[in-house]
């Protein structure tokens, strides 16, 4: 059983998942409801692994339809009502989405067609949307036409009509041939684009191949939606949606084109995913900019969309999600039974807000050993005069940090800390990033024996190894060395302030940036945010659909890095970046980047 338990968490990417697996493991979040019910174009911003692909893949008609058919136990009321919602949408044909991944292979091949880049982009994106629209059409015919003979005849009618609308070289009468023909067109057209790039003249046949896809961007898709509406009695009120995944691969010029369409298109809606700082521009190809809030809204899904919530609500949301994700994955394996996340890892000592783990006397002893004189005096005073304020202003904030610090200073030899353990710490260290959670589960179960419980010491050891591997990932990115050095620098600074300098009641664990920061520092921070190793700190209850800091703002270190730097996984007080780069204590004058 243990080996299948370990194997259960090896795959973590929504792109790898079969439709069936995606539907079974999907967790309906507030962001998903936002995407489903908004009447606006939306851009989903999220770091790598935050679940962008899973979200917009699930919006597609074929996946929403599978979700509407999902059978669950009656015990889960939330999920049951979500499935009813999906059923309603599918039945009423009110939201019909097509998922289109923007793949790096064809986006980057644009560079090979100097002089025809824009034409190739339009042509390719039109072909991509039409090729994926076939998935939607198949799902719709399967859902809305029950009779097999009627469905076959409808398939024939639709294919013939689309052959005509998309000016295919021949008329096709079934979906599988249709796919093959589009593949042929892609191959032949690639040759033609190459031929043009060589300066060789094209013949008439070559000039007219795939001509329909040379028209206005998204026109072949829009025209096809109208044809399908007629055939399948889809009402005018239905929303036809294009879900474009991974727009971070696109260049600024392409984003301008997409912005222009979002600003003017009224027949289709767009849901586009990209990394937080990879919506390159708000410009369009006309004079006006796209208006955020009107033509487009942002959905920021990092930390499960909790960045503008208070810490306690955010922690509860993320922990609930982590537990559900763990359960959903194990449900896919018939051989694994009777294991819960809490059963496997237990509770977290570090984040328990209770005097059961450490009583007030012990706490006051730790404050005496580790805090600065002002905090010691304040703690004593509040403890004597107002216990509520003592708990709120001192104990709640410092308990976990003091435990970490005490353990750090008293560790002997190669003994391991037991503190990075338990459901609460584990879910905090995932930052609510599903792919990170799977990696964390995978690390936790690495080399696990036959036991169904992992000791806190082993958990801590494995979470620390996970933590460092999360940091190392950034080195693999273009320009990632700079971000790596930056994170090392601020992580080491926070470590020193947490473990060595005498503590005050507000420990810094976030940075405040001035608008004047150097471009290369800003680039390093943007990369870290894009990869989910730093997060912008939003104002509580702010409208996070509009706000996103550009340079000036507050950013915190991802919780996943806390075990590596021996920190308590929390946001903490913000400190000016200048103070991090020029620390007062010691002689560690930190240059931001090594000379290159």
């Amino acid at each position, binding site marked *: 059983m243990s080996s299948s338990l370990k194997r259960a968490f090896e795959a973590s*990417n929504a*792109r*790898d998942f079969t439709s069936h697996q995606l539907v079974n493991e999907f967790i309906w979040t507030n962001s998903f409801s936002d995407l489903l019910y908004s009447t606006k174009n939306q851009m989903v911003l999220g770091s*790598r692994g935050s679940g962008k692909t899973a979200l917009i893949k699930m919006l597609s008609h074929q996946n929403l339809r599978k979700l509407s058919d999902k059978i669950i136990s009656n015990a889960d009321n939330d999920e049951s009502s979500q499935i009813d919602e999906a059923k309603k949408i599918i039945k009423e044909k009110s939201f019909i989405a097509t998922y289109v*991944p923007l*793949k*790096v*292979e*064809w986006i*980057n*091949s644009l*560079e*090979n067609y*100097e002089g025809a880049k824009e034409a190739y982009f339009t042509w*390719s994106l039109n*072909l*991509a949307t039409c*090729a*994926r629209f076939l*998935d939607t059409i198949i799902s719709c015919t399967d859902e809305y036409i029950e009779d097999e003979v009627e469905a076959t005849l409808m398939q024939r009618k639709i294919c013939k009509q689309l052959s005509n609308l998309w000016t295919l070289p021949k008329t096709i009468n079934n979906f599988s041939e249709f*796919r093959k023909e*589009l*593949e042929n067109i*892609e*191959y032949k057209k*690639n*040759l033609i684009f*190459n*031929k043009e*790039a*060589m*300066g*060789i003249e094209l013949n008439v046949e070559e000039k007219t191949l795939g001509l329909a896809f040379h028209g206005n961007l998204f026109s072949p898709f829009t025209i096809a939606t109208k044809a399908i509406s007629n055939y399948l009695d889809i009402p005018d009120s239905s929303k036809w949606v294009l879900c474009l995944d991974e727009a971070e691969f696109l260049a600024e010029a392409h984003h301008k084109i997409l912005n222009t369409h979002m600003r003017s298109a009224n027949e289709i809606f767009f849901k586009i995913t990209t990394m937080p700082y990879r919506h390159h521009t708000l410009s369009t190809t006309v004079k006006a900019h796209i208006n955020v809030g009107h033509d487009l809204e942002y959905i920021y899904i990092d930390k499960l969309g909790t960045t503008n919530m208070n810490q306690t609500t955010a922690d509860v949301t993320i922990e609930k999600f982590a537990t559900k994700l763990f359960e959903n994955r194990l449900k896919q394996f018939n051989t694994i039974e009777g294991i819960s996340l809490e059963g496997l890892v237990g509770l977290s000592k570090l984040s328990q807000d209770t005097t059961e783990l450490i009583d007030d006397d012990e706490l006051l002893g730790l404050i005496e050993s580790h805090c600065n004189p002002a905090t010691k005096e304040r703690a004593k005073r509040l403890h004597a005069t107002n216990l509520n304020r003592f708990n709120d202003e001192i104990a709640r904030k410092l308990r976990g940090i003091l435990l970490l610090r005490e353990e750090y200073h008293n560790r002997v030899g190669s003994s391991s800390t037991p503190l990075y353990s338990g459901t609460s710490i584990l879910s905090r260290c995932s930052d609510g990033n599903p792919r990170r959670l799977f990696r964390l589960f995978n690390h936790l179960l690495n080399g696990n024996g036959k036991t169904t419980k992992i000791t806190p010491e082993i958990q801590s050891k494995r979470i620390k190894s996970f933590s460092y591997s999360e940091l190392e*990932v950034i*080195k*693999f*990115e*273009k*320009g*990632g*060395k700079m971000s790596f050095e930056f994170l090392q620098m601020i992580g080491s600074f926070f470590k020193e302030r947490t473990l060595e300098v005498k503590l005050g009641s507000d420990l810094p664990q976030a940075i405040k940036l001035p608008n004047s920061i150097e471009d290369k520092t800003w680039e390093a921070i943007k990369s870290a945010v894009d990869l989910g190793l730093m997060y912008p700190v939003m104002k509580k209850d702010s409208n996070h659909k509009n706000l996103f800091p550009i340079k000036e703002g507050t950013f915190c270190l991802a919780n996943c890095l806390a075990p590596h730097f021996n920190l308590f996984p929390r946001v903490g007080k913000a400190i000016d970046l200048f103070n991090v780069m020029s620390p007062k204590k010691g002689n560690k004058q930190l240059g931001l980047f090594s000379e*290159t």
Partner: protein
Amino acid sequence: MKHNIRVNDLSRSEFINNEYDLVILASGYEPRCTYVASLLTGTRITDPIVFSYEESSTDPAQIENEKTLGDFGFDQKLSLNHNEVKKVYQAIIEKLKFIAVGSEPYKILIDYSSMSRNWYAAILNYLFNFFDHTVEITFVYSCAEYPLNSGFLDFELGDVKILPGCQGSSITKSKTAGIFMLGFDKIGPLSFHNLLEPNLTYGMLSAPGSLPDYEQQARDINGQFIQHQLNDGKNLLCSPIFSVSQTFENLCQLIRPIKEEYNISIVQFGPKPHLLASTLAGISFKNVSCIYSEYKRSKSHDVKASGELVITTITINHNPTKN
């Protein structure tokens, strides 16, 4: 496969004793870029051309190499940027425009030891897809001992590129398979795995390598990737550096069973003969893409020829019924 092609390995003496209609060399800062030219002093060559890296045109090592090539009779130079394929197309079309119809296969020799992969991919793209006559291209690679301990591996990944003529069918195929050609780069394959997120992953490693310990070094450097992405090595294939034909055949065997279902992205790290084999796969299969990252190195390195050669002949027959 799109074309009728044959890939054969060739001996050193066959290569030297052949006659060539066109010889294409590349001049850069590596000392080894003159080695193949030094072997051709007695070989009959109708038309030579040297592609020279514009970006390092003032590098004293490159200037010295160009002087040496000139002394060997290779004095017709085309200066171009490493990713400038338009000039390559123009040059090759110009060279081949007066070829007589129905003559013997046109024979080209390309020394790709120091050549940009864009340049030889562009040449292959033209010859495979748009040149009407049978052509025999001899590719020569001069092995080298890499200065692995002198900062040679200290580089950063740059822009992601797709080789000309190797776009594959990534638009219409919804699934992706990745074949990672592994070399001495620890971070590159992991970075590309993150980028492509393939549904299926294979790896290929040079075994044996050009020096006895290179295979183990490559295994050590790629240990993490082999363990996590290649299923503890179960999805890793080994292929010798000295045989492009065998590597190409191995790639074909990986590609054929999955090509209907997947667009296959070959991620190009690894030794140049492996890259040539994968470029051939990219050009000859319609749904294979070749993807790579440019490197940013802070300084040039002294890559000297070891004397060993990898020689490959690729015959492209556009009209097989006539032969």
